[in-house]
């Protein structure tokens, strides 16, 4: 199972961040979410936290998406020492998407009303 992200539909509402936080902590705090939405003028980019890396990579730079410059670290899913996203704010413990448990029940997909996030079979 995969979560398909359609950035062209994403509205920047951040209900997915809220859903993830609510599901994992029982309270609402986007800083505890495993999904983060980067809101831009032309489009928004939801990014789901991937694995933790011990060291920052040296391939940082700019990628072009939809004709707009995007910081590569924004698209990168890693919880990494070079950035503050995907870490528990109090403890600094890295966060990683766990598909909301076993069996998977991704809350972010359920709370994404515009269907920018959808569940697809492999």
């Amino acid at each position, binding site marked *: 199972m995969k979560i398909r992200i359609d950035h*062209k*539909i994403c*509205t*920047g*509402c*951040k*209900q997915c961040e*809220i*859903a993830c*936080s*609510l599901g994992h*902590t*029982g*309270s*609402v*705090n*986007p*800083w*505890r979410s495993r999904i*983060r939405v*980067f*809101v831009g*003028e*032309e*489009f*928004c980019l939801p990014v789901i936290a991937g694995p933790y890396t011990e060291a920052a990579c040296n391939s940082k730079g700019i990628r072009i998406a939809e004709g707009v410059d995007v*910081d590569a*670290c*924004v698209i990168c899913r890693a919880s990494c020492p070079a*950035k*503050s*996203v995907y870490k528990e*704010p109090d403890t600094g413990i890295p966060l990683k998407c766990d598909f909301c448990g076993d069996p998977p029940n991704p809350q972010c997909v*359920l*709370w994404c*009303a*515009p269907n920018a996030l959808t569940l697809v079979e492999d």
Partner: protein
Amino acid sequence: MFGWNGKILRIDLTQGTSRVEDLPAYLMKYYVGGRGMGARILFDEIDPRIDALGPANKLIFATGPLTGSGAPAASRFIVSAKSPLSNCVASPCCGGYFGANLKYSGYDLLIFEGKSPEPVYVTILNDRVEIHPAGPLWGKVSSDTEKAIRNEMKTDYGLDNWGLNCMGIANIGPAGENLVRFASIMSDGGRAAGRSGLGAVMGSKNLKAVAALGTGQVSIADVEGFRKAVMGFYAEARDNGEFQKRRRYGTWGLPGRANSSKSQAAFNFKAGYSEAFVKYENPEVIRDLIRVRDEACFSCPFSCGKRSRIKDAEYPLTAKGPEHETMALLGANCGLGDMEDICRANYLCNELGMDTITAGTMISCAMELFEEGHLPEKDLGYALEFGNTNMFILLRQIAHRQGIGDLMAEGGIAFATKYGHPELFMGVKGMGIPAWHPQAFDALGLQYATCNTGGSHTKSTMPFYEGRKDPAHFVEFTKKDQDYIAAADSGVLCWIIYHGPLWGEKLSEWLTHVTGVARTKEDLDLLGERIWNLERLFNLRAGITGKSDALPPRITKEPRVKNRVVPLDTLLVDYYEWRGWDKNGVPTRKKLEELALEKEGEGVI
């Protein structure tokens, strides 16, 4: 604590100090949040007779227990202060990201007092509250102000991209700095606490902007119940055609609906229809012309916001809106028909920080004065018949108080009176009236006339819903809808989604799940009525009486639309009775006792 933080952040701009206070329990119990708390604090802490632009006025940014909770379309905050335009209590509501961030910073309310000796802006990052000199920001338009503050904060706070774009900023443009009486408070790239001129109150305090970024949380009392309720709401909305339309078109479906039913403000309310708007009767046309993407406020599944773009180098790459109100007031009402022109007018007002509705009625008033020969061309320096794009020059002049703009910045009554025709300003209590022509629906006329904040449409519901057109019942509905919206504004829920009777019961559902304090519909009706009456008492103390519950004579005497006039005098008799007020529109002792407001009524009733 669930829902609330239980804290007030109070900033004294005269002294340059801030302190945190506990939020009194009675405020949570009897006023809930947002508009209710704002009204109560204003009533308790300021003399309603003060000069709204003097240092004694207070500016309150008020969230509610639902703000930032994840309840659909509950991103919002209310700004409360005495209005420099209507002299009434004001409570415009604004979306975007600011409200939730104030909440996540650990506060329910943010109160500004006094006046800073120098221009400043304030940043709030949880308990780190700082007042910075705003010298270089003063004079900047709204979007440049936001950009500059984001850049500063990026370095000062070491924020990454995501943290930066979580932030919410409320700010003013040049119009607020120059104390234009209908200046708006702008937020997050084109959202606005637009009506009532509170941008000028911010300007009078030398406060250019306030930025909030919170990393805290809102705790939910009944997580499972809440989650189920939200999912239930999503399922209902999915099958609801109205909602699908809202998501696709935002308010862009309305210009056509208003125009084709001859109910649109047009040509200074001389008409209910504009030939030039016929092409927008299919909202797909507007989408094709200007839309870039759908844009939601924080935590809103409905994304009524639309980012737009026009091909004109002078204007920003993309911008928000225009909404229906703006299209009608700055468009049809000023004789503009070209969508790019309407976008220009919208961008100008947003960047300069002016309410598009009142600005539209100001310009249309000037146009009619000009066409009728009352406003000489030499006073303007250019011609200004309906549809003339010289109105863009005039909008800039108002914001900068240049030439005739200086007088117009004082509001429609002062301006139209100077040129001998106060009746040509289409406003209530000094505030321009909105897009739907009141002669199309009596209920609207009554609503505009009796609204506590001036000529506003967002303090009641729209007149197309069941019963609101029925002559035997709409007065009762007006009273009840006003009370219900006052309660929703205290949540704080978005009017766009919750104004219809359809979703009214959701307010009690969300409040109960989030705060753990059960509130029935009856409790909320009482809450709304208490707020409405308290606001009324504030206005009475400020010297605004039932005599101001009036409409422009064009609406009550000249049949311009559907060959009808609004029979306001008879409606008011009925309305005051439903309210439990006397024939002068003053609450009776009995009513105030019901609402436990008898002490507040002393000296007024």
